[in-house]
C-alpha cells in the first residue's frame, strides 16, 4: 500500500513539474511577430518544426580567418530568429551576414532559433567561447536575466536588435528597434499632406494585438478622431491576409459606398485591396481616384509604387547591422536606438530606392 502511495506521489510530482515546464515554455513563446513581410505568427508547432531544422546550427563562419588574424578581429556571437520566418527576417539575416565579415574586422558566429530556451542555450555557448559582443534578437521577452548577467560578469557586451526583452537596462549596451507607432504617424502625415478635401478611408488591419497592428492603427485612429473631414468607411482586420482584404474591399464596393483611401497595414493586404479595385474598375494610384497605402517595402510593392499603381509604402527597417557596427566601433550614445524608417511616395520613388530598400526577390 505504501509503495503504491509512493509511486502515485512521485508520479504526481513529476507531472506537476512537467506541467510547470510547459507553462513556462508557452509563456516564453508568447510573442507577437513582427508584421514585416506580411507574416503572422506561424503556429507554435511549425515554429518548433522550423527550429528543429536549424537547431544547433551554430556555425563559425570565418573560423580560419580568426586563426590567422587572432588579435585583430572582434568576435561577435549573433543570435537571431530563423531566417525562414519571413521576408523581413531573411533580409535582416542577409544584412547581418554582409556587415559582420572578416573584411569589416569581425569574426562572427551565428545561431538561429525561434525558441527562447534554445536561444538562451546558444548565448551561454557564446559566452563560454569568449566572444566580445553578443547580438540578440530574442524570440521571447522573458528569461534572459541570468544569461545577460553571466555575459556582463564575463565582460561581454550585449546589444539587442529588432526586439526588446524584459531585463534591466544595465544588462545591455543598447537596443535597436523599430517604432511601429512612428511608422504609422509618418504614413498618416504623408496622407494629410495630400490635402484632399475629404478622406474616406478603408482601414485594413493586421492581426489584432500584434505590435505592428497597434502602432499602425493607433496613428490613423487618433488622426480620424481629431479631424472632421477624415472618416473611416470600414475598419476590419484581414489578419495580414490578401484574400480577406480583397473580400473586405469588395464588400464596400458592392454596397456602393464611396471611398478614396485604402490604408492597409501591410503590402499583402494592399495587394488584395487593389485586386478588388481592379475588378470594379476603380482607378487607383498617383493622381487617380483612390490612394493606396501599404507597409513593409517588399520589392514587388515598391515596384507597384514605381509604376504609379500605389501611392505610399512605409518601411519597416530590417537593416540594423550598420547601427550595431557603429555602436561597436564608436560606443553607444543611448540605450534605445530607434531606427530611421522611411516612407516612400510614388511620386518621388526611384529605381535605386527599389533596389536598395526592397525586401525579398
Amino acid at each position, binding site marked *: 500500500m505504501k509503495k503504491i502511495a509512493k509511486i502515485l506521489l512521485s508520479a504526481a510530482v513529476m507531472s506537476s513539474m512537467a506541467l510547470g515546464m510547459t507553462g513556462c515554455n508557452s509563456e516564453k513563446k508568447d510573442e507577437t511577430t513582427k508584421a514585416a513581410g506580411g507574416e503572422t505568427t506561424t503556429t507554435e508547432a511549425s515554429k518548433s518544426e522550423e527550429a528543429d531544422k536549424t537547431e544547433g546550427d551554430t556555425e563559425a563562419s570565418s573560423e580560419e580567418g580568426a586563426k590567422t588574424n587572432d588579435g585583430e578581429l572582434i568576435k561577435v556571437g549573433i543570435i537571431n530568429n530563423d531566417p525562414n520566418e519571413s521576408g523581413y527576417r531573411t533580409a535582416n539575416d542577409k544584412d547581418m551576414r554582409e556587415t559582420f565579415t572578416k573584411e569589416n574586422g569581425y569574426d562572427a558566429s551565428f545561431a538561429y532559433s525561434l525558441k527562447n530556451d534554445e536561444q538562451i542555450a546558444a548565448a551561454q555557448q557564446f559566452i563560454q567561447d569568449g566572444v566580445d559582443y553578443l547580438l540578440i534578437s530574442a524570440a521571447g521577452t522573458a528569461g534572459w536575466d541570468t544569461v545577460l548577467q553571466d555575459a556582463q560578469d564575463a565582460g561581454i557586451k550585449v546589444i539587442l536588435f529588432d526586439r526588446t526583452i524584459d531585463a534591466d537596462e544595465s544588462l545591455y549596451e543598447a537596443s535597436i528597434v523599430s517604432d511601429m507607432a512612428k511608422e504609422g504617424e509618418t504614413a498618416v502625415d504623408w496622407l494629410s499632406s495630400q490635402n484632399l478635401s475629404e478622406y474616406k478611408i478603408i482601414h485594413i488591419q493586421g492581426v489584432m494585438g500584434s505590435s505592428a497592428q497597434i502602432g499602425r492603427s493607433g496613428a490613423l485612429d487618433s488622426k480620424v478622431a481629431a479631424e472632421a473631414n477624415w472618416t473611416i468607411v470600414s475598419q476590419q482586420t484581414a489578419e495580414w*491576409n*490578401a484574400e480577406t482584404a480583397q473580400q473586405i474591399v469588395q464588400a464596400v464596393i*458592392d*454596397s456602393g459606398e464611396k471611398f478614396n483611401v485604402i490604408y492597409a497595414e501591410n503590402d499583402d493586404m494592399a495587394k488584395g485591396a487593389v485586386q478588388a479595385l481592379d*475588378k*470594379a474598375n476603380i482607378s487607383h494610384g498617383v493622381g487617380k481616384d483612390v490612394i493606396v497605402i501599404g507597409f513593409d517595402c517588399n520589392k514587388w510593392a515598391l515596384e507597384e509604387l514605381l509604376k504609379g499603381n500605389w501611392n505610399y509604402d512605409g518601411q519597416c527597417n530590417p537593416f540594423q547591422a550598420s547601427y550595431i557596427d557603429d555602436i561597436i566601433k564608436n560606443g553607444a550614445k543611448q540605450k534605445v536606438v530607434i531606427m530611421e524608417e522611411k516612407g516612400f511616395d510614388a511620386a518621388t520613388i526611384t529605381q535605386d530606392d527599389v533596389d536598395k530598400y526592397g525586401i525579398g*526577390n
Partner: protein
Amino acid sequence: MSSSENKLQNNTLLATIKKIVSKQVFIPIAALLILVIFNLAADPSFFKISVDKSSSGDPIMSGFLVTILDNASELAILAIGMTLVTSASGGQDISVGSAIAIAGSVMLRVVCGTSARPESLHAPIIVAFLVCVLVSMAFGAFNGVLVSYCKIQPMVATLILFTAGRSIASWINNNQLPVVSDPKFGYYGNFIPGIPVPTPIFIAAICMIVIALILKFTNLRLYSQAVGINPHSSRLNGINPQLVKLLTFVILGACVAVAGFIKVSRLSTINYAVIAKDIEMDVILAVALGGNSLSGGKFSMTSSILGAYVIQFLTTTLIKFKVSANAIAAYKAVVVIILVVMSAPIVREKLGSLKKKVLSRKTVKEVA
C-alpha cells in the same frame, strides 16, 4: 363533417411539412433562407447584380451574391472531400489549410521554375496543375495510411501535416514568394476575359458534377457509409475498410489541389503563413451544418455543399454590416452554435416529438 375534412387536410399538410423538415437538407436551406430574409429586410440592394466593366475592359458581374458564390467555391470543393472523409473515417482532416499551402507552392514552383519572378510561364498551367494534384493526393494518401493502416485518430494523424505543412510549402520554393506576372495564370481565380461570371464558380460546378456522377455510378457512397457505420461488418461483407478510408483521403487530396489552384490563381502569388488560414475549421463546419454526423456513417453531399455556401453567406453578411474586427468571430460563433445545435440529430428528434405533442393536443381540442 367539415371539421373532419379539415383535420384530414391538416394531417396531409402536417405530413408534408414533417417530411420536408425531417430531410437532412432542410437545415442548411433554412439557414440560407434566414440569411436571405435578414439581408432582404436590412438592405434590399444586397441582391442587386450588375454587369460592369473591369479595368481591363472586360464585362464582369458584380454584387454580393456573385461575391458569395465566387468566394465560397474553395469551401464547397473542400466540403466534398471532407464529407467523404468524415463519413468513412468518423473523423476530420485538419491539415486542409496547410495542404493548400503545399499545393499552391507546388503549383507556383512548377509554373515559375527556379526564378521567383519569371517573365513567362516555365510550364503550361495544366501540367503544373496535374503535378499539384499528384502531390496533393500523395499527401492525402499519407494522411490516409496513418488513419487506415496505422489506426491513428484522424485528427491526430492530420495534426502532423497541419503543423509541418506550411514549413514544407515554404521549403518547396526556397522560402521565396514567387509572383506570376502572366495574366493568364490569374484567369482561374478571377475572370476569363469575355465571360462575366467568375471562373471559380465554374470550377466548383464541375467538381460538384463530377462527384455527383461518381456517387451515382459507383459504390463509393455505399462503401464509405458502410465502413463509417461499422468497419467490422463491412469487412465481413467483402469491403476493405482500410482501402475505402485511404481512398476518401486521396479524394480529399484532389479537392485540396483544386482549391489550392484557385487560391494561388486569385492573387498570382502565395504567402505560406496566411494562405487558406483556418479554412479547415470552416470546412468541418460546413459538413456539420449539413447535418452530417461527425462521427461517420451516413452523409448527404448536397447538404454539406449548401453548408459551405451558408458559411460564406454569413461571412460576407458580417463583413457587409461592418461588424467590428474583434467581434466578427464571436458573431460567427453564436450563429454557428445555433445552427449546429439545431441540426444535431438528437435535438431534432426531441423537437419533432415536442411538436407532435403540441399538435396532437390541438387536434384533440378541435375534435372536442
